[in-house]
């Protein structure tokens, strides 16, 4: 009897370990043809993508492209009208999964009649964090977003930027495995944006997956490992920044070379010369130092080197080109 029970326990433990291993190995987000219609309006048309664990994933698109709808679907706040998806290895819509997920909604206001610290404690409670950890946890996230000295103030007195920081702090409570940030910097000044980027870097270091919704291309370019570009409810491109941007162009500002010498640089790739700047395409990132060395050898003076000069914005507009 006892032996059976022990065996059962061992089997149970093995099963649980196996389940945990599967869950850990599963991507942060995986969805196949996920779609949402509101009546005749298509908010999201067949979203298929995989977000690996521990990566900062940029979900990029113009306003109204379906970015917020995608987040709401992934969080289980609305039900899909088609397709399927998994978050942290669990099917969409499971209440328990939300314990492991943080979320900063777009354009929201917290209860103005609560103090900052009270909002955080409320969310500790709703997130079912053990009561003994609340104090430490709220102090930790307040410190992270730089609001420690305002925790006792009423939310009513917070500026837009501070509200956003508080939202970020709420999203980080309980060290979630995956954090959704919906336009986190749209209400912030440059300093606030810098701070948000620092928080995202911190999350990446801690191994947290971040799903960043944004229409700000430079923002995404600065923090994301991988990007999906969406337009009118469809993903039009997805990949790492290098993959999306080609990663094989270099822009160099140089003087002191004659026309023949400038043309000789086409040995490195297809070169375009607009007088001051030379763009060399099809150049591997590893060969950029060789290119610079060659310019110097020829007697040129180098003022600037911009590897991967094509911006996300160029690429995005290029992709949208057909439809817009």
């Amino acid at each position, binding site marked *: 009897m006892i032996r059976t029970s022990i065996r059962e326990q061992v089997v149970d433990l093995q099963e649980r370990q196996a389940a945990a291993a599967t869950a850990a190995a599963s991507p942060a987000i995986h969805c196949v043809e996920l779609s949402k219609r*509101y009546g005749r309006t298509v908010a999201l048309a067949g979203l298929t993508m995989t977000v690996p664990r521990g990566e900062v994933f940029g979900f990029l698109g113009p306003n109204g492209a379906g970015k917020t709808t995608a987040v*709401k679907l992934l*969080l289980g*706040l*609305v039900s899909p009208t088609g397709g399927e998806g998994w978050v942290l290895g669990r099917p969409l819509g499971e*209440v*328990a999964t*939300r*314990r492991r*997920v943080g*979320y900063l*909604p*777009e*354009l*929201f*206001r*917290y*209860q103005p*009649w*609560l103090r900052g610290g009270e909002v955080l404690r*409320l*969310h500790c*409670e*709703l*997130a*079912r964090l053990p009561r003994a950890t609340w104090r430490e946890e709220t102090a930790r996230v307040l410190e992270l977003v730089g609001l420690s000295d305002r925790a006792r103030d009423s939310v009513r007195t917070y500026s837009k930027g501070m509200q956003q920081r508080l*939202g970020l702090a*709420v999203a980080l409570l309980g060290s979630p495995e995956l954090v*959704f940030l919906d336009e986190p910097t749209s209400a912030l000044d440059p300093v606030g944006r810098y701070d948000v980027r620092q928080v995202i870097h911190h999350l990446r270091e801690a191994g947290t997956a971040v799903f960043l919704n944004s229409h700000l291309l430079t923002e995404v370019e600065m923090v994301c490992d991988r990007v999906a570009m969406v337009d009118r409810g469809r993903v039009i491109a997805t990949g790492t920044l290098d993959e999306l941007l080609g990663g094989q162009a270099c822009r160099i500002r140089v003087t002191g070379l004659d026309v023949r010498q400038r043309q000789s640089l086409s040995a490195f790739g297809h070169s375009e010369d607009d007088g001051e700047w030379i763009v060399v395409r099809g150049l591997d990132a590893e060969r950029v130092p060789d290119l610079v060395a060659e310019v110097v050898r020829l007697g040129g003076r180098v003022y600037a080197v911009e590897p991967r000069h094509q911006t996300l914005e160029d690429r995005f507009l290029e992709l949208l080109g057909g439809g817009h």
Partner: protein
Amino acid sequence: MPELAPLLTFARLTIWEASRRRLLVAVLVLTLIVIAATGWGFHELRYANGPGGGPEVGEVQLRLIASQVLIFIVFLFSAVLALMSVLVGAPSISGDVESNLVLAMLARPVRSSELVLGKWLGLAGLVVLYSAGAGILELIVVDWTTGYVPPSPVGLIAYVASVGLVLMTLSLLLSTRLAGMTAAIIPLAAYFMAWVGGIIGGIGSAIGNQGLITTGVVSKLLLPTDGLWRGAVYAMEPASVVAAMRAAGTAAAGNPFGATDAPAPPFLAWTAVWFTLVIGLTLWSFRRREV
């Protein structure tokens, strides 16, 4: 199935909000002023020639007058309570949806049913607390100034509180789909229509018109506030008044401030069903809403 812990969190948050927003304080101060004013009025009832003098009326007569005046005062209270119940219920869910606050809360491991039931419980707590507090205080003042105690004080408070609960529940249902202002106006209009419906039904039974009687019954089933108000009136009427009204026969039935009988058990059972249906509808409506 909704769980208790998050449900209670939302209930506490709702009460917390009301107290922080100074709504409770404002209503309490106003109520205390009204109670003090009515206390002075009840005290002056004993002088036949009005305030300031004249011979005192007899104790029996004083209590009879007090019982009738109390009915009007309680009607005033129940109208204030109706207004308050609707004003706290109507923006409760719609406000959170408009501010996107509901997204932040529902992204936690909680169900939409826990949010709705928690809010209902918190608001119900406020309505009951206010009814009981104001009711008990007013009854103490009346007893102290005139020596009159209505036959069923507990029943009185329970019926008055139920009127508030009905209106709060209806406005919470509307709050899942409509903006705060609209969700407040509709239950208030319905409250007055149900009151008039009750009077029409009474007139119907006084003159024996079946159509009017049916109108009264239908309005009572759609919104049980007037039926519950009659329960409160019955709880306040001394036996002599009930006897006099019964003697007057059907002629007294149209009086909205009179009741010859306690609410029938089937009506009370229907009221319970009404609550279950409307709360069920609220849960369904909010779950189906795409936030």
